[in-house]
């Protein structure tokens, strides 16, 4: 067993580093609680890279920061890396950032976690609106479009949920609407009736959700069963086609969600083409995370096409240029935030494909 260890390690160490072509490793969570989102990321990145016939390898980062750092170290040693498609799990990004700076490798991610672009690290590029953007759009839609003033917030006790909650609170306050109820729920919670009951007891005029895919569907199902008639505006997990697949269309009536984009809702020939090739390649419906990662890798590949030959060239191109992607036009704000638009989609109760109802561009966002 030990000898095998040395043989295998020796083999890995002996792999020659090829300098001629740039490679673009994809380091995303394919196992664990974020595997759904991570798989979207993987597919988006892989689609862009295969279309361009670029060199890549996919490494699972699981859910631990430790595994993410190890994966980055591994990828860095395997050839001439141009940029990395990096995990959307905020904690993993935070762990990879110092190493990326040391290795001088741009990380292209769709993580919404606010703090990853607050570290003063020039190597991170986020191709998904951060929570500062999406949560502002989320709150603005609730207050400005729906005219609601008494929101109740149910969020997940994960990095995704806590970061969203931290931004929703001030966003609502800035709009003159105080949260009448807020509570975190564990992703393993099976029955969400207790939290729904408590939320309703606070007499809200709208339910605001920031939960992962499964729990979002659970709560909507429970709300439908309890005959809740309040409008529900959910977080980005709602727009994922796999979330809607868990529910009957009628259970979705009147539900809206914040997201960066909704590829299956169409909107442009480019978007339709993306959705079609995504379906053909993976047999699944694409979501905004896949699209964001796709757009991000496309910007990276565009930089290479325009003459970037090193990781640092790519970083400069990402930091300084702008890219007309399928979801929106991306341009860095100087900190690596590339996406500044968010949309609201709503379900009409007859289909699982939502319609785009409101678009928020160039959102400044309430910085926490």
């Amino acid at each position, binding site marked *: *067993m*030990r000898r095998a*260890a*040395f043989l*295998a*390690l*020796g083999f*890995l*160490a002996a792999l020659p580093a090829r300098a001629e072509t740039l490679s673009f490793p994809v380091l995303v969570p*394919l*196992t664990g609680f974020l595997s759904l989102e991570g798989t979207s990321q993987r597919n988006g990145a892989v689609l862009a890279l295969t279309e361009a016939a670029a060199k890549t*390898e*996919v*490494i*699972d980062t699981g*859910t*631990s*920061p*430790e595994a993410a*750092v*190890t*994966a980055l*170290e*591994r990828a*860095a*040693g395997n050839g001439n890396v141009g940029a990395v498609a990096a995990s959307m799990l*905020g*904690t993993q990004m*935070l*762990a990879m*950032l*110092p*190493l990326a700076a*040391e290795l001088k490798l741009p990380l292209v991610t769709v993580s919404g*976690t606010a*703090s990853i672009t607050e*570290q003063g690290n020039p190597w991170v590029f986020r191709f998904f609106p951060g929570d500062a953007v999406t949560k502002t759009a989320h709150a603005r839609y609730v207050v400005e479009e729906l005219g609601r003033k008494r929101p109740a917030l149910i969020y997940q*006790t*994960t*990095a995704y*949920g*806590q*970061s969203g909650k931290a931004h929703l609170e001030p966003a609502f306050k800035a709009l003159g609407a105080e949260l009448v109820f807020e509570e*975190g729920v564990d992703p393993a919670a099976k029955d969400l009736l207790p939290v729904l009951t408590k939320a309703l007891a606070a007499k809200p005029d709208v339910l605001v959700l920031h939960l992962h895919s499964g729990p979002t569907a659970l709560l909507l199902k429970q709300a439908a069963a309890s005959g809740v008639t309040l409008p529900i505006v959910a977080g980005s997990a709602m727009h994922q086609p796999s979330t809607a697949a868990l529910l009957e269309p009628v259970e979705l009536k009147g539900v809206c969600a914040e997201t960066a984009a909704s590829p299956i809702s169409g909107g442009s020939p480019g978007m339709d083409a993306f959705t079609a090739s995504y379906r053909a390649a993976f047999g699944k419906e694409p979501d905004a995370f896949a699209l964001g990662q796709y757009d991000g890798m496309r910007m990276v590949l565009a930089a290479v096409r325009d003459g970037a030959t090193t990781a640092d060239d790519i970083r400069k191109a990402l930091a300084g240029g702008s890219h007309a992607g399928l979801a929106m036009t991306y341009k860095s704000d100087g900190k690596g935030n590339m996406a500044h638009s968010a949309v609201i989609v709503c379900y009409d109760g007859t289909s699982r494909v939502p319609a785009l109802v409101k678009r928020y561009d160039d959102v400044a966002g309430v910085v926490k």
Partner: protein
Amino acid sequence: MRASLSGRLADAVLALAALALLVHAVGFASPYGLRVLTVAGVYALAAFGFQILFGLGGALSLAQGAFFGLGAYVTGILGSRYGLGFSVTFPLSLLVPLLVALPVGLAVLRLESHYFALATLGIAQVLHLLAVNAPELTGGANGLPGVPGVVLFGWAVPRGLPMAALVWSMVAVGGAVGWGLARGRLGRALTLVRDDPMAASTLGLDVGRLRLTAFAVSALFAGAAGALAVHTQRVVSPEVLEFPVMVSILTIAVVGGRGRMAGAVLGAVLLVHLPEWFRALERSYLIVYGAALLLTILLAPDGLTGLLERLFPRRARPVPDATEPPPGRKRDGEALSVEGLSKAFGGVHAVQGVSLTLRAGTITGLIGPNGSGKTTLINLISGLERPDAGTVWLAGQALTGARPDRLARAGLARSFQAAALPDGSTALEAVAAARLASDRDLAAAESHARWALDRMGVGELAARPCRDLPAASRRRVELARALARRPAVLLLDEPAAGLTDSEKADLAARLRALAAEGVALLVVEHDMGFLLPLAGWVVCLDRGRTLYEGPPEGVRSDAAVVAAYLGGGAP
């Protein structure tokens, strides 16, 4: 000769493996290879503590991952929020888990097996909840970024080889400390506590204190590992407190080899590298990992060290020369006196108002039909059961209701009906266990044990495993175990059961010799032909009450005794 050669071969294999690892790390490993090695070192360190607590002590603690996480959070919070350096945070990362382990251990260590596991799991889950839901302190689910690297005497240890070297030197130090503890008195005593806690306590070992010590030591190791983990990954998040970390440590300990420090290292190196070899398979790599793990445990159920030992059996250690242990306190007159002892189990009076006195240098026989309360009486005297009423005086001290180990240390020794020798150990080790509470080191305990074995005429069996001993020899080894304690009072539960007549005669002679030295003996026996000539005084119990007390000559003529034995019971 062959055995000794292959024993050396096993050491050589381990040494060569270590050397190869070193050469590989220094000369050939990529930064990635070094990182994986560093992570393996961190897990090895955490597993050392678990080997002591679970491997040797048998306590299935599910809090080892929690102490790991606690150490990680101490370093993480102090390092990233307050900018404190390694020289401050590292000792605190050891101290805080220790300070949590002590009160927690006091509260839950008395629980048995799975109840203990559940209690420790509960504590781990509470810590995880706190980490996730107290974002002001812990950064919440996101955790805290920006934990500084290790700075040693003003030198910031860079990642790669220096960090790997730092972690592995800690592994070396921790491994040496763990190895010393495991091979010493603590390790031996914990093994006994694991295999037979009851026997351990009647041999004078404070089971609670030993378990607490092991719990505290395991927390120290886990805290150190947690701190190093955070320094290598530079963020701390609730993931370090999650159940998979605990499962990894447990798996490493079992796959490596329970109770062995080398096993912790082998297990950690194998299990941390295993998924890395298959990672290129994308989503399927964990399936292959699971299959490999299954295969490993099937091929090496006693762990990798167990496999090595099977391939290269170790030579037996030489048996030490005999040394007579210092004699116990000599007392004349009453060695033990019992007054009005009573015990009921759910309404059934097992022992009711029994009084008896054992004098130094005498042999007292305790007889009675099955179920008359003889064994319960011995259990009450030796502290395994607490009496409902009555008093026990041992060597002039009132020790009613005292714990078995306290009574044992006050000069009481006992044997069990079914000879309670640990199957896995040799006769010498089994007897040496009786000296752990009184001798300073293992060498002294073993040479004293050799003396006791010689005394019982089984010195030549010292190196034999207990499970291979014939019944008569087991009896003698068990007597040697009791004798090795140099007790003032010796309680024997059916010592002649299953012996031939000549063996019984031999046993009687040895017991007489003990009495002649001033030991007070209480012998429970059914065999009247053996007991009556031996005993100077006989007590007969029936349904928990004293039926007869007097010289042995009077037993056969006592009408009540005869009636009780003939099964007629009371008229």
